[in-house]
């Protein structure tokens, strides 16, 4: 599914599109623990997180993750947006809880990494 479809399913807002909105995403991984994210081996994934700090962007950069969804309306700082811009990472945000966001996307067809 594309990021556009993900945005529609969750009524998410685009904080930074970085030309990624039509990119195909097959898998999702949800975590607030960045070491967990760094331990997975997957491509074409979106990272779903309730954590909002520069290390989330760095973690995505190192893991070749090209889109991040922040749940529960987390505040994303200009520093985070700047880092994401440099690394070509799209940033989305929705108001739903982590559980609801993951549930909706699972039903819509996004697959787990394992």
């Amino acid at each position, binding site marked *: 599914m594309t990021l556009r479809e993900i945005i529609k399913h969750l009524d998410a807002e685009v904080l930074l599109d970085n030309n990624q909105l039509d990119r195909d995403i097959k898998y999702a991984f949800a975590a*607030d*623990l*960045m*070491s*967990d994210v*760094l*331990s997975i081996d997957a491509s074409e994934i979106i990272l779903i997180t309730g*954590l909002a*700090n*520069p*290390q*989330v962007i*760095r*973690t995505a*950069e*190192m*893991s*070749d993750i090209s889109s991040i969804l922040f749940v529960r309306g987390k505040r994303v700082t200009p*520093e985070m947006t700047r880092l994401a811009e440099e*690394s070509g990472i799209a940033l989305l945000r929705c108001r739903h809880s982590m559980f609801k966001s993951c549930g909706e996307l699972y039903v819509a067809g996004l697959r787990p990494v394992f």
Partner: protein
Amino acid sequence: MEFSYDIAGGDFSRAGAASSEVKKILKQLNVELAVIKRVVVALYEAEVNVVAHAADGVMQVTLDSASIEVVIRDRGPGIPDIALAMQEGYSTASPRVREMGFGAGMGLPNIKRNCDSLDIESTVGVGTTVRMVTFFNR
């Protein structure tokens, strides 16, 4: 080729800057993407460890056509029991480190998984040296 980057302890806003520079260099050298990912994940966890646990450090990178060697040397408390620190789940990280999304005791295991050889030397009260080597074609 050799490169060197300073790492400031405690400065979570800059953590990852050195690993990010190394990633750019490896991309320019057209190293295979899967290999780049392994290298930079290991470097980033090691860089975060300096930020999280030490006062300051230096990342020294030596590159040739076949491999990358990275030595991260820090001044800090050192690691009293390296075998224990290597165990998944062992962590002395502060609440502040946990707020940043680290501190679950997975860093050193992540590093070990992602490089071809790993050596850690540490002197309590002085500091820690982490040496990682990864080969490009294996």
